[in-house]
């Protein structure tokens, strides 16, 4: 008897089966019912956004460092991977036919497709995307290591935030002028010709990966050290935690995922413009995580999807001619949210496997240390019981 010992990345086999089922459901049941546009705007884009927001929440919500620099790493990941695939796109194709079969009549209600393609993809291109994404993410991580370490060494909270803001602006300026060094990027005119390699599969895989990795780190000793810095940095130092090291670790992890998300983003819309990676937009992830609840993973996920879908959805729901109003409604909703529920949607509440693991109490020997309560129970003065 007993539970199966199988654990992949700390999660049970049941978890992974559920993940696969969710993927299949989304791929075959949900996506076919959405227009191409909605698939991108309502499912894939928020998935990518969620990755960068989880990273930012790790840095700010859990580690307590206010950073606006993730947007800069998003840009770095996007451009780095885009340049790589742009140059290599014709050299790596290896189509795989896979299995095609007709949808069984029983499932046709659920799955509105006539045929189901299994394992029908291009191995070469997928491999290219994978490599480019890792490249973008690692480049972002390396740069964040250098930048973060130097800046964290000297600056705390507010000023660190300002330095990261400067970083994002510097990255954007460099990208606007990048065509002098890397002509493919076409600088301010925007980069085109990026192969559109991001499929739902990859967005989903990387999102799940991001969620599981961040959750795992959080609920481990490393995660506890990271959180202790937010709680009380001085006390953390006094308890033996090298706070500089953990601030750097958190920053690098968050930036890694930002770069990863950027790479996926570049291959989603197949177009990159440096204007998108500017100061104004850099607040989006920050707004999302505050909206969902700082230091709350479930909240970030929910908030990203709500944010993306609502912002896009308003284009449809608002009466004709009023589409521009959605950017007016959006800050109003934000303001109301801050006034009415500043702790965010989920506050401190996590759901499902994102909850902190509980450890049962152990039956141990009675308390040994003398306490005030124990003294009260025994009125006569007594020696400390050993």
């Amino acid at each position, binding site marked *: 008897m007993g539970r199966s010992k199988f654990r992949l990345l700390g999660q049970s086999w049941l978890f992974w089966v559920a993940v696969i089922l969710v993927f299949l459901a989304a791929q075959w049941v949900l996506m076919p019912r959405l227009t191409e546009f909605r698939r991108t705007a309502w499912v894939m884009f928020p998935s990518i956004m969620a990755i960068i927001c989880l990273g930012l929440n790790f840095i700010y919500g859990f580690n307590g460092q206010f950073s606006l620099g993730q947007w800069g790493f998003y840009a770095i990941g996007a451009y780095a991977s885009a340049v790589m695939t742009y140059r290599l796109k014709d050299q790596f194709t290896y189509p795989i036919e896979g299995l095609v079969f007709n949808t069984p009549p029983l499932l046709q209600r659920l799955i509105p497709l006539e045929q189901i393609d299994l394992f029908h993809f291009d191995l070469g291109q997928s491999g290219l995307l994978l490599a480019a994404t890792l490249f973008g993410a690692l480049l972002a991580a390396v740069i964040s290591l250098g930048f973060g370490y130097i800046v964290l060494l000297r600056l705390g909270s507010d000023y660190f935030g300002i330095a990261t803001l400067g970083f994002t602006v510097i990255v954007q300026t460099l990208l606007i002028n990048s065509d002098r060094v890397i002509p493919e990027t076409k600088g301010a005119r925007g980069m085109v010709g990026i192969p559109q390699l991001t499929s739902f599969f990859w967005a989903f895989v990387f999102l799940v990966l991001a969620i599981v990795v961040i959750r795992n780190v959080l609920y481990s000793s490393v995660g*506890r050290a990271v959180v202790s810095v937010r709680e009380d940095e001085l006390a*953390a*130092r006094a308890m033996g935690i090298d706070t500089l090291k953990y601030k750097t670790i958190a920053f690098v992890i968050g930036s890694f995922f930002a770069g990863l998300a950027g790479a996926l983003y570049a291959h989603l819309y197949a177009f990159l413009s440096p204007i998108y990676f500017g100061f104004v937009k850099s607040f989006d992830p920050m707004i999302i995580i505050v909206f969902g609840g700082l230091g709350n993973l479930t909240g970030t996920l929910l908030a990203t999807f709500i944010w993306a879908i609502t912002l896009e959805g308003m284009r449809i729901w608002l009466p004709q001619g009023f589409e521009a109003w959605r950017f007016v409604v959006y800050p109003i909703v934000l303001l109301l949210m801050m006034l009415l529920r500043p702790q965010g949607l989920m506050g401190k509440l996590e759901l499902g496997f994102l909850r902190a693991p509980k450890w049962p109490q152990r039956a*141990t020997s009675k*308390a040994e240390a*003398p306490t005030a309560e124990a003294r009260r129970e025994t009125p006569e003065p007594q020696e400390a019981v050993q």
Partner: protein
Amino acid sequence: MSQDTAQGPVVLDVQGLAKNFGGRLTTQGYEGGLWAVRDFDMTVSEGELVGLIGPNGAGKTTVFNMISGLISVTDGVVTFQDQSLVGKRPHAITQAGIGRTFQNIRLFPQLTVLDNVRIALHPHCGYGLLHSVWQGGRFATCEREVTEQAQDLLAIFDLQDRQDEIGSSLPYGEQRRLEIARALAAEPKLLLLDEPAAGMNPQEVHALMDLIQFIREKFDLTIVLIEHQMRVVMGICEWITVMDFGQVIARGTADDVSNDPKVIEAYLGRQGRGVGSS
């Protein structure tokens, strides 16, 4: 200045410790500013329980902060078990074997009681980032060990029933115990307690005194204690250093110190009487 009864190897040796706030560094040393601590000496031997007292603002917490590395040392030597501590970062000092508590309890406010202790066990946890992500066998084993150690420690302090409660929601006395438990999780050799009896009623104070002696025995500690409540100091400290205006003004046993005119003057002014009795 050495004591009469050196009980064993010297654990902590502080010589000429000094701290200047706000002065300007010149080629002749610091100009201006405030000397919060000056010419502070203290030698503590293994297993001793000693006190550091003095009026408010005398510089006691500053001394602790310098020993534990939270504040930079302007001048002086701090030697712990033959290692110099000056210039070391606080976490390295803690890992070398010095634990401390704080005047205004500094628990991790939003974390559970269990997590508060587990964080202090982190440097000994046995795995790093890679295993945190992978969460394989090594992770499971180490997590169980760390958690069990933390739970055992909590049980000693009768806090095991509170393990999942948020630290800041505990009653004051229990928060103090938790802070001490947390400091002990790192298995220190030397424990610095900063006003552990602050805000306690007489009954709690007496229990605290028992507790301090208990942990000294059980955990084989050397303890330096800052305290204002004379009952505690006179009751449990083997010898006492008295500070005023950043400098040592007296040293000795409880009796010596309570009859020292300089000490009386520091606490009560020129016309004062004897400083409290046990």
